């Protein structure tokens, strides 16, 4: 399983802060993103950053291990 978290405006548009996605061998971050973006375009139109296991990831080709925690995030607005 992969845990996908959402916060703030993305969570609002997803109508949830957390979903679980079946892990598939060879799965990359880009695959997960396109699957979810196709189902939730209004949430993913504001996604501009991703993190895997608490680290920023810029390369969308990284493979996702089973049990990963992935976050798709909109631009930060703290401070």
């Amino acid at each position, binding site marked *: 399983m992969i845990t996908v978290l959402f916060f703030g405006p993305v969570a609002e548009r997803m109508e949830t802060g957390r979903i679980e996605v079946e892990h598939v061998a060879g799965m990359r971050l880009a695959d997960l993103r396109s699957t979810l973006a196709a189902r939730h375009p209004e949430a993913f139109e504001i*996604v*501009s950053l991703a*993190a895997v296991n608490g*680290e920023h990831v810029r390369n969308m080709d990284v493979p996702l291990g089973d049990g990963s925690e992935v976050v798709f995030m*909109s*631009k*930060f*607005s*703290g*401070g």
Partner: protein
Amino acid sequence: MSEPVRLQFEDFSQDEEISALQAASTRMGGIATFLGCARDFSQGRSVHEIGFEAYERMALPELVKLRDEAITRFGLIDARIVHRLGTVRAGDRIVFIATGAEHRAPALEACRWLIDELKERVPIWKKEITPEGDSWVTPHP
């Protein structure tokens, strides 16, 4: 003594933060601070409250890293960063940064750098709660 970098729901005292900062060294000649407060007005609308949500697993380490970077980059003696989560009301404290150095220039420059970097790099999101409803602040992606 409280941790120098914190994400917390409760309010805090500036005097206590400054005292904790000063405790690091009596060679500290300059202390700069930045305090961000909740405004009651944003982009033409009145705002009653502001809600904050963080991805804490990443936000806290990122704040710790920012502090370490600032200390090295500007040669600070010490620095502290506190950011509140949850709901705050107009006038309430949101974020506090304090930087201490032997002289004033590095303290002032580091304080400016820290608040600018915090806004760019720390996964925290803000929701404005207005009489017309709530809305998340979404800078252009």
